[in-house]
């Protein structure tokens, strides 16, 4: 049996290693240049949603949610995802998306402001014109899920090597699942994959009085400001006005006041809370913001470039990659994610069916 070495013990790598072992692979090594779940996974928001626009993406999301459901609390809280709008244009986007998603079998419902107030207890709706909600979505704990998958993988015989780089271990097949560092990891194996790290930051509040445990992931669609509950606190985020490319993981403190103000306006019960901590992590962006899954070259396979939604897709991706590596194909459709689509720098992909 070939030796498969999975590089990157984050959500994606852990899931691939676990599913490989589950499917009977006998010689699997999971390596991480640092420790389990120490990179992007530990920084992630943990939102898990099905609200995507292609059958392939929706299928990955639905398979993943099934897996998260089995894990259950405290790994996963199925509180739903709420997108709401404060303008007609914002609601237009949500409605268009809802039609696409419903067409793909995602149970997304429309909510009026009154229903939003009921669905998301504590959220101020005076300026809200409407929204959409998928009750099957939810929020997870990326670090805990990843540690659990690694624990299970090791139990099934996977060798775990921390503080080890992917190219340090002899492999028949090397799987690059190194998130934002996948470009350099591939390079060391003589392969290429175009991944750009993008810095994003999250903020955690202190305890918020009376936080309802059914509070969904709540997203203000016009601004992208969003928050979720974790324990007795809220975690909030919003995309930067200008994307911050690069590997640095420092927090931009200049926006913290603004974010807190937004939270206080949207969630009055947080009126007196302060920020407890803020941290930054890296997205692994591809040019089209879709992942790269497939062979980069002889013996080098990529599962990276998830562009900010890797954790939520990690269970299904892990299974699909394991199936492909062991059986040559997966029942899940990975064709939209092949590396070849990014090879043409001119960006003319007229013939590509996505």
């Amino acid at each position, binding site marked *: 049996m070939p030796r498969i070495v999975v590089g990157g013990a984050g959500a994606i790598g852990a899931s691939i290693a676990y599913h490989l072992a589950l499917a009977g692979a006998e010689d699997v090594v999971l390596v991480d240049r640092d420790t389990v779940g120490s990179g992007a996974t530990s920084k992630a928001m943990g939102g898990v949603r099905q609200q995507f626009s292609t059958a392939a993406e929706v299928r990955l999301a639905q398979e993943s949610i099934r897996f998260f459901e089995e894990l259950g609390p405290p790994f996963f809280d199925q509180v739903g995802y709420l*997108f709401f709008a404060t303008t007609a244009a914002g609601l237009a986007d949500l409605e268009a998306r809802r039609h*696409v998603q419903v067409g793909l079998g995602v149970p997304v419902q429309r909510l009026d402001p009154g229903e939003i107030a009921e669905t998301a207890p504590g959220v101020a709706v005076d300026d809200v014109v409407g929204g959409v909600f998928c009750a099957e979505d939810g929020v997870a704990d990326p670090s805990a899920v990843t540690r659990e998958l690694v624990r299970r993988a090791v139990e099934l015989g996977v060798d775990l090597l921390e503080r080890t780089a992917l190219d340090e271990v002899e492999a028949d097949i090397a799987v690059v699942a190194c998130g934002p560092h996948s470009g350099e990891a591939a390079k060391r194996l003589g392969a290429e994959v175009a991944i750009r790290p993008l810095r994003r930051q999250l903020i955690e509040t202190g305890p918020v009085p009376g936080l309802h445990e059914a509070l969904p992931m709540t997203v203000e669609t016009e601004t992208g400001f969003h928050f979720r509950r974790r324990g007795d606190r809220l975690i909030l985020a919003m995309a930067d006005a200008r994307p911050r490319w690069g590997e640095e993981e420092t927090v931009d403190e200049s926006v913290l006041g603004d974010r807190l103000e937004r939270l206080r306006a949207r969630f009055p019960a947080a009126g007196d809370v302060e920020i407890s901590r803020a941290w930054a992590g890296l997205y692994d962006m591809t040019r089209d913001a879709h992942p790269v899954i497939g062979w980069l070259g002889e013996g080098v396979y990529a599962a990276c470039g998830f562009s900010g939604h890797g954790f939520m897709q990690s269970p299904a991706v892990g299974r699909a990659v394991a199936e492909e590596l062991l059986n040559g194909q997966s029942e899940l459709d990975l064709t939209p994610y092949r590396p070849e689509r990014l090879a043409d720098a001119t960006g003319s992909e*007229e*013939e590509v069916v996505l």
Partner: protein
Amino acid sequence: MLKGALAAAVTPLRDGGEALDEAPFGAYVEFLATAGLDGVLALGTTGEGILLHPDERRRAAELFVASAGERLDVAVHCGAQTTRETIALARHAAETGAAAVAVIGPPYYPLDEQALLAHFSAAAQACAPLPFYLYEFADRSGYAVPVSVIERLREQAPNLAGLKVSDAPFDRFSPYLLEGLDVFVGPEALIVEGLERGAAGAVSGLASAFPDLVGELVRNPSRATGKRVAAVRARLQALPFQAALKRTLARRGVPLAEAVRAPLRGLTADERRDLDTFLDGDTI
């Protein structure tokens, strides 16, 4: 007779837009029918009709009609630069089993009332007794067809059933709301007002990729929904429209390529990413 909500369908192309792609017609028509539309207008502005060779137009019309069967009414846009070609296409559409023929005023040359009347009259006659619809779109023809031409055409062409009107804003649209003719609204932003004022339905370019969204609006017109649909149209229109519709359809599971016929152009990498972000929502 046409009724209700129709999609101004895109035309599946391949080889960088240089050839008709016959394979996806069935799946595409199925997608539109499943969404609950009443019909399609094939080969109109959204369908790149005027850019296609007459043989391609005939073949595409046949494929739409054959794929639609009893499920959807297929109106075929047969407007061409010359009267002779328009007649040939209209005759072919009638023979193929289309439910209706639509014809735009020929672009490029300014045409006086006499010339327009002769053109439309010949086209209507070529497909008679099939219902004939005049396609009024001043920005594309280069002129507005005078209402007096339509009144005279009624006398000459008993099969004139109505119009598709794509002029906006509403005061350019409303003169065509003529007693006894079925008017179909082109601009999504005018659907609600048009229906309130007696229009028979809508023929929408946006419905080619969002049939559910537009179908719902035509069935349950409300100002608020109308505004939302118009906003989605504006967003797609900011991109190369036909290519954006085709990519949207591909993402929704209709296996067609993004390819469009030059001089229309495809999406740049950035435009493609913007469209996907619109469809998927931001990374959250």
